[in-house]
């Protein structure tokens, strides 16, 4: 049983089908990027997972249990959501203390997570005076308070400066290295590419791809060679024997991660005549747009 399982999840708001029959797992020890254009249904999916939104059909569970059924939810799941806010008149330390009392965590954890996110010095200031980056760090501190097995973060780099983004990347990798399951929803594809192991891509509420970053999106700035041959099937077998992945595209083939020279050598060794051979550099953005079916600007 995966730490996070979404099965046949659908959510309808009136006449709008925000999420349609979505199914995916999130694995422990890996960072999973949750990608999709605006309005794709990412936030709705995350909120259904966290018990904030009631699914129309389907389930979203943590080790087989719904969020509301968890005995100590903050010890199991830590979440940072995009619209999370804090009482402006309360200090960060007191905000975390309230959560510690609710979740039955020792107050020592408050000091520990404040130090982890670099807010120790500002901890006794009212949150109303915090910058956006400080609020984001406080949200992350709150998510880490229970040392949870699963981390869910919706646009976690919002408001963070470049050093903060680097810090966040390190945090996500460190949590995964500790065996946590990390799910990150983000629009920043380049940032996602540097942080994640797996991706789940959705568009218009439906799953478009799920797997390793390389297999789903071809990697950042990945090289792809387009080739047409007299005998596509023989060339395909030869390329696969040489360890390449081959995809059919129109009347030709696409070979991700291989240069035209490499493809040419394989074709020559196999005795396959080529009709066309060209490098096709496909950026992560292009791959994402192709997968989600969104028009380029």
């Amino acid at each position: 049983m995966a730490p996070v399982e979404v099965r046949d999840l659908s959510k309808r708001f009136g006449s709008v089908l925000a999420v349609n029959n979505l199914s995916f797992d999130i694995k422990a020890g890996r960072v999973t990027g949750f990608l999709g254009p605006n309005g794709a249904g990412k936030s709705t999916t995350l909120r259904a997972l966290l018990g904030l939104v009631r699914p129309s059909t389907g389930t979203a569970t943590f080790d087989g249990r719904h969020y509301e059924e968890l005995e100590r939810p903050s010890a199991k799941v830590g979440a940072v959501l995009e619209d999370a806010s804090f009482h402006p008149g309360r200090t960060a330390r007191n905000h975390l203390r309230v959560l510690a009392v609710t979740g039955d965590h020792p107050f020592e954890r408050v000091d520990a997570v404040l130090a982890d996110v670099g807010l120790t010095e500002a901890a006794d200031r009212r949150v109303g005076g915090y910058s956006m980056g400080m609020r984001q760090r406080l949200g992350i501190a709150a998510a880490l308070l229970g040392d949870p097995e699963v981390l869910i973060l919706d646009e976690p780099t919002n408001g963070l400066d470049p050093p903060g983004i680097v810090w966040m990347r390190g945090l996500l990798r460190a949590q995964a290295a500790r065996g946590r399951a990390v799910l990150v929803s983000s629009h920043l594809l380049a940032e996602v590419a540097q942080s994640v192991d797996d991706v789940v891509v959705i568009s218009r509420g439906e799953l478009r791809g799920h797997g390793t970053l390389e297999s789903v999106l071809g990697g950042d700035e990945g090289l792809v060679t387009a080739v047409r041959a007299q005998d596509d099937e023989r060339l395909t077998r030869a390329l696969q024997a040489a360890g390449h992945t081959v995809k059919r595209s129109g009347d030709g083939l696409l070979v991700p991660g291989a240069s035209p020279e490499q493809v040419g050598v394989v074709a020559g060794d196999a005795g396959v005549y080529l009709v066309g051979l060209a490098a096709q550099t496909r950026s992560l953005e292009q791959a994402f747009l192709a997968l989600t079916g969104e028009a380029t600007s």
Partner: protein
Amino acid sequence: MSNLLRAELLKLRTTRTFVALVGVSLLLSLLVVVLTGLLSDRIAPEDASDLFTADFTGLFIMLLGVIGMAGEWRHRTITGTVLAAPDRLRLMAAKMLAYAAAGLLLSLIVTVTIMVVGAIIFSARGFEAVPFSDLADVLWRNLVVAALVGALGVGIGALLRNQVVAIVGVLILGFVIEPALFGLAPDVARFGPTQGAPSGIQDIEFFGEESDPLSPGAATLVMLGWIALFFAAAGVRLRRHDLV
């Protein structure tokens, strides 16, 4: 549940809302007692007892409960609160208990203070002292009302969710609707949650000598009924509400 209750009490202690409302309630109540004590020719002990019922306090406590619950939507903290405490009915119950306790404390502070100040003024002016038993009677009735209206405020805030609408609604109910209802149907008005039933618990003729308040026991049951009604209605709405 005890963790939730402790967390809600900690929330109350860590913002200035509670202290501000204690301050305003105390100020207004003291103003009434001081002016009455200084400007009256004579105050009989039974009139002094009525003076110590601290009428403003009940209203402020109800508003405290409204702010404590509806404020979760105003400050957009409801998402974080529900993530920490996903059982929404237990969350609301914990808030009701917390604000009942807060109401008790606020009422204790205000009632004891105005009794002490009032006793000093009355003594200085040569008025007859209020028997201690009467003061104790006023105090426990105030505390019961305080606890009940604090819990009710949370229920109102949970049902309406818009803090401004809830506050204005409570004020209109207390200063317009219930007094008007007394003029039209006094037997119905005495069941009202902001003035009618609390007057029965406090054994005061809030609407004048013609009013016939409920007995304290009956009035307490009526208030518990109001709390249960708002809890049920708000609970249904809260459980169905998608937090998007």
